[in-house]
């Protein structure tokens, strides 16, 4: 006996198996990202007012990424629609766009990550804070002390809070600042360990990016070797494109919330 309703829908539910499966899986994903969003809210609400970063992320770059993902969503649905209209070549075109846009998104995200890893905050012995992007790193760490020096493109502030709410505290112009090793009490780049904001930012966007990559791999497989099924079982293949499309739209949905929450608010 073969497994029924793999392609033809079951009468009373009106659904084929994989569609039930993917929506169930997406439900679990809603809970996964939902837990992370809840954690974000909790951490933010629990933080001191001035010490929750605002304006640390590049809004134009984030907006560009949002537009990239939205465009990939329309190309995804058009790819499926093309198959429904028996236009295999158009499907190939649209999903090629989807995959390219996916890589663009990940590329832009990598640039943003790299920028953060290159951005340092120094707590200095005289109670001030030096903050900026690393230009030259001649520092050597011995135990809890540093020797040498570093050149950063940034500025020095007296209150750490000035580095946090960039919307409130107008940024002075950035210049070359030389940071002496022996003056450093603490040093950290803007990686996940820097504070809970970067921690939740990297976790949320990192997990999202993994889903983008995973989705792109699946769509890539279906675009390439998997597309052979169009010749032997076109309806089943179209359903596979629909299923992978549903996953892709979910990934877009998560970003629709991630973008304003992390970048704008």
């Amino acid at each position, binding site marked *: *006996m*073969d*497994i*029924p*309703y793999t*392609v*033809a829908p*079951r009468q009373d*539910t009106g*659904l084929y*198996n*994989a569609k*039930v*499966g993917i929506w*169930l*899986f997406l*439900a*679990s*994903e809603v*809970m*996964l*990202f*939902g*837990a*992370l969003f*809840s*954690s974000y809210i*909790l*951490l933010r609400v*629990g*933080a001191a007012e001035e*010490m929750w970063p605002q304006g640390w992320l590049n809004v134009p770059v984030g907006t560009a990424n949002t537009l990239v993902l939205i465009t990939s969503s329309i190309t995804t649905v058009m790819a499926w629609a093309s198959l429904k209209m028996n236009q295999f070549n158009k499907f190939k075109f649209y999903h090629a766009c989807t995959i390219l846009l996916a890589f663009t998104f990940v590329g832009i995200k990598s640039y943003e990550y790299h920028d953060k890893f290159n951005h340092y905050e120094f707590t200095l012995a005289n109670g001030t804070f030096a903050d900026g992007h690393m230009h030259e790193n001649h520092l050597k760490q011995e135990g809890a002390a540093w020797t040498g020096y570093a050149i950063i493109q940034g500025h020095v502030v007296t209150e750490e809070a000035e580095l946090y709410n960039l919307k409130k505290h107008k940024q002075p112009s950035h210049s070359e600042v030389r940071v002496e090793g022996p003056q450093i009490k603490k040093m*950290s780049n803007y*990686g*996940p*360990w*820097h*504070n*809970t904001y970067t*921690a*939740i930012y990297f*976790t949320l966007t990192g*997990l999202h990016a993994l889903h983008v990559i995973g989705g792109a791999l699946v769509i890539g497989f279906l675009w390439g070797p998997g597309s052979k099924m169009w010749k*032997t*079982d*076109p*309806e089943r293949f179209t359903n596979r494109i629909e299923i992978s499309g549903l996953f892709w739209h979910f990934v877009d949905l998560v970003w629709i919330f991630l973008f304003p929450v992390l970048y704008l608010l």
Partner: protein
Amino acid sequence: MQPTAHTAHTETHDAHHEDQGFMRKYVFSTDHKMIGLQYGVTALFFLFFGFCLMLMMRWKIAHPTLPVPLVGPLLASLFGEVAAKGIMSPDLYNSFGAMHGTIMVFMAIVPLAFAAFGNFVVPLQIGAPDMAFPRVNMASYQAYVIGGLIMFVSFFIPGGAAQAGWTSYSPLATAIPTDGQTFWLIGMIFLITSSLLGAVNFIATIIQLRAPGMTWMRLPFFVWGQLVTAFLLLLAFPPLEAAGVMQLMDKVAHTSFFLPTGLAVGGNLANVSGGGSPLLWQHLFWFLGHPEVYVLILPAMGIVAEIIANNTRKPLWGYKSLVYSALTIGFLSFIVWAHHMYLTGMGTRVATFFQTTTMIISIPSVIILTCFFISLWGGSIRFNTPMLFVMAFLPMFGIGGLTGLPLGFNYSDLHLHDTYYVIAHFHYIVAPGTIFAMFAGIYFWYPKITGRMMSEFWGKVHFWSSLVFMNLIFQPMFAQGMAGMLRRMADGGANYSQAVVGADAKGGLSAQVMGLHTYILWAAVGLAIAQIPFIVNLFWSINHGKKVTSDNPWQSTTLEWQTPTPPPHGNFAQVPDVHRGPYEYSVPGQTADFSPQNQAS
């Protein structure tokens, strides 16, 4: 639909299955029955392993300064300093404790109750040829094995396994400098993935692959139990997965998701950013943790239902109540979790909310138990081994459930939280509760899998001795808990016994309370010996058990008994047609005392 493509597919499909090699048939199987057996065997192994951990723990509690008998030298050679001269150190005890809980819950009971029984029985009972997604099924088993291996291996890395309890509270979990917690977290991610894949499969299968005529209200209650369990796993596990990722980042990337500002470890300020919340971990953990306990009990209740109906030769009383109660339990279980957190400084409003929902959720549980009890009334009871286990389940689960009420009330929980009372409560539910249902299920479905019966005599020996010893182990723990003995203490509370702090000190544990440790240890050893007939019976009966004379030796109505023994690949030669409900026993006017679901009218 393209008929030609499909028939071609079917022909190659069947031919392909004629000549499967050993690997394809036994190791990389996509057949739900084989996967069910794989889950079962692996889970029983972990059950045994977790049981052994418990024996060593109980020795340590009763005799904190003495070397563990028999295995002491082995512990010393395996673990070195933490088991020097065969005496368990507190650190080793803590890791055994954390792993006993983790292994029993995530690697033994859930895979056995949900995945093993569910995989084997559900497709058969709904009249399906297999699960909806057989390859996903195989993947979910493989993820389970990988996760289990990672957990198992963690014992043998430098520093040993995780030590912060199965609940892994931060900051302790990440402050302990060894790698055991990292292994635990990565292992959990694999185990959670396995459960999620399984849950998707079960729900899709039950929704989509019911045979014609198998309406929702004709489903065996076992299937309903599995359906609700699957939903709980699907929606409750992901927040723990998120929390696990965050705790993993705390551990390896030095983030501070759960680490508060100003955290000091070993007297020194921790070199972390701070700003995190330990409570956040607890909320996310218990958001899974509470539905998890219903994951542990619902499949068991399903098995109890099947065996009661079959051995009373009458329909279950209150089928609709059972179904609606199971659905209600599933729904409510998502909004009761913080009753595990009453002592975290919660305000009265929130505590009242959770207390209220906790009290409400006890109602459907009582309804289910009541329906089972009433089902016995007027039945022609056959006292075979599965039925004995199932009948004992009823009062045992009753004790476990009722003793939960003082824990659900915020006020009494203030006294009982984190004491041995809690341990007694949940072990009553899981040990003479769920595990008895597991035993019942094994004895019950064994003939369908192997074509032979397990020995009735040794089954009864197994049953009576397990029942007696389980009660001897856990009953005293209620008294110990009420006297104030706390959980997770390697010395069994010796450091604040009256012998040490004096008879006048308030809260000192009396000699009687401390003395119970010795009785519990002997009872645990007794329980261990009681399992020997079961283990021998299980293996011996494969080739030497009494052969069944029919495909339906228990004369059951449900579809899994209307197949050949063992069921072939594809289960049913033709799609079964279901004509009636699941428990048509002793129907007036019928000659036979049971009417199978697919029997033509």
